[in-house]
């Protein structure tokens, strides 16, 4: 497979007057987990729907697994696994029935289908619940079944749209584990999420989308570094030494606002210089009670790019 799993050039989608996706370029490398991060209504789902052939682009080109999403939709559909957040599972059917149906939809028949269904049920831990109707499943179980459905034909690229929205922390961890395992086995994953932590935990590379445009792209570490120096906060054992400490710290970065009895600087060069700071303070006889280094978070990256915060932002339905 030489073609890149996902390539988009100048992708645009308009809904009447609204330009939901406003010229997006994307390249996803084989074998990576690509995190597509943005608030509700930013254009994430619209982009994914175009990539999985559910929506026609107004302009631009997209190729998935080497196939054009408009000209070769069937070849694209054969190559991808899709778990969309807003695509419900029929509650009247059992897990096994749904998996079998999905296998048939992908042109798998007879023994292959049976074998694959059994493997996947075991893989996502639903063997015991396989013959129960999906209506009786918990949210976490549904999401795991959804994942199994997307994997029935061993897709080249797996599209996961908000895979853990609404899940409790334990179920979320289980889904993350499964996504990591899949990725280790070679599946390329295109993950959309509004959770910073999820992107941080899973994605090797992320793109931040806001207002239909990509505002940042890169690996999370580099993006955070680009935002600026981490904040070093120092709490002294003895307030008498405050002036000395301030003088020492001034040599490592600019002062930042801190609570009373503490000092804070933007540590130039980041964590690598932490040891030097501690040594210098020690040489001047400053006793430190508490010391912490706050790296910029993806939320800081988002704020830097858009001037807004993503975390705690109101979750309005897109």
């Amino acid at each position, binding site marked *: 497979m030489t073609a890149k799993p996902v390539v988009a050039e100048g992708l645009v989608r308009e809904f009447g007057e609204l330009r939901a996706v406003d010229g997006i370029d994307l390249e996803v490398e084989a074998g990576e987990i690509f995190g597509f991060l943005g608030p509700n209504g930013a254009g994430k789902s619209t982009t994914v729907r175009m990539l999985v052939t559910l929506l026609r682009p107004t302009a631009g080109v997209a190729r998935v697994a080497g196939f054009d999403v408009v000209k070769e939709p069937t070849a694209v559909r054969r190559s991808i696994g899709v778990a*969309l957040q807003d695509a*419900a599972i029929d509650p009247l059917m059992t897990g096994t029935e749904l998996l079998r149906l999905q296998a*048939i*939809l992908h042109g798998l*028949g007879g023994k292959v289908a049976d074998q694959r269904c059994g493997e996947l049920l075991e893989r996502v831990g639903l063997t015991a619940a396989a013959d129960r109707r999906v209506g009786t499943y918990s949210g976490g179980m549904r999401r795991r079944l959804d994942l199994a459905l997307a994997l029935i034909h*061993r897709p080249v690229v797996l599209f996961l749209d908000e895979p853990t929205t609404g899940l409790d922390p334990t179920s979320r961890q289980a889904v993350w584990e499964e996504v990591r395992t899949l990725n280790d086995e*070679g599946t390329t994953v295109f993950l959309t999420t509004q959770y910073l932590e999820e992107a941080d935990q899973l994605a090797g590379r992320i793109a931040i989308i806001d207002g239909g445009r990509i505002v940042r792209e890169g690996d999370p570490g580099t993006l955070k570094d680009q935002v600026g120096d981490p904040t070093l906060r120092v709490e002294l054992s003895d307030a008498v030494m405050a002036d000395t400490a301030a003088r020492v710290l001034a040599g490592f970065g600019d002062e930042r606002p801190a609570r009373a009895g503490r000092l804070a600087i933007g540590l130039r060069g980041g964590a690598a210089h932490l040891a030097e700071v501690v040594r210098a303070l020690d040489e001047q006889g400053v006793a430190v009670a508490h010391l912490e280094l706050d790296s910029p978070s993806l939320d800081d990256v988002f704020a830097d790019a858009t001037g807004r915060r993503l975390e705690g932002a109101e979750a309005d339905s897109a």
Partner: protein
Amino acid sequence: MTAALDPPRPHLRVVAEQTWALTARATLATARNPANWLPGLIFPLVMAAVYAAQFADATRLPDFPEVDSFLQFILPSAILQGISFNSANAGSDMATDIETGFFDRLISSPVARQSILVGRIGGAAASAAFQSVVLMVVFLLFGAPVKSGLVGAVALVIISVLLGVALAGFGLMVALRTGSPEATQAMFPLIFVAIFVSSAFFPTELMKGWYQQVAQVNPITLIINPTRELVITGWSWADFAQAVTLTILVAVVSLSLSYRAYLARLASS
């Protein structure tokens, strides 16, 4: 798990499997949800019981066809009523799939496009067959047999299946155009009105004025009358042929409409 596409299998066989699987799903959904099939049995039976009691003596009116009982007279109408319930369900189930996103799940797979529509129609056909058999048995137990015997009963099942398909076509059209289960259910009373302005519950010969004129050209009358002949008089190839031909004509119209709506929905995405 390495990313490997499974080898392609013969296309026709795959399409057949997909269509069958989606038909099975539609049928299963109806069977597992009593709210889907129970009204289609209870309502026609209650109506039949009320009418049979109310109009028991109407059969002695001049111009009323020769029948054993009023109950026997309205057997085809009861089946038609039951089927109209079910066919509305075929539409609203499709609309529900669209609303919940299951439809997206289906079309984001490489499934043959026609299978999705044909599967729903197949589901409607299966429940129409079930409904007609159950109603005929119940009517038989209450002393209203099909005069043309087993052959006639089989003919009635065939006509019922075609009717189920024809009516499902209208429901599917509304479902695919609107994507709304409520809108699809809302067209159900229209079918009911059409049934009432027909010979379904009374012979057109005994009607008057505009009502009679409308009822006489109502396709439902033209389908019900020959079907009723099979029930109250006896076997006739001509009656069977008329009922089947007219039902197929209606089905061609409704299925064309729903197919166009389906293509429009696929293209609008």
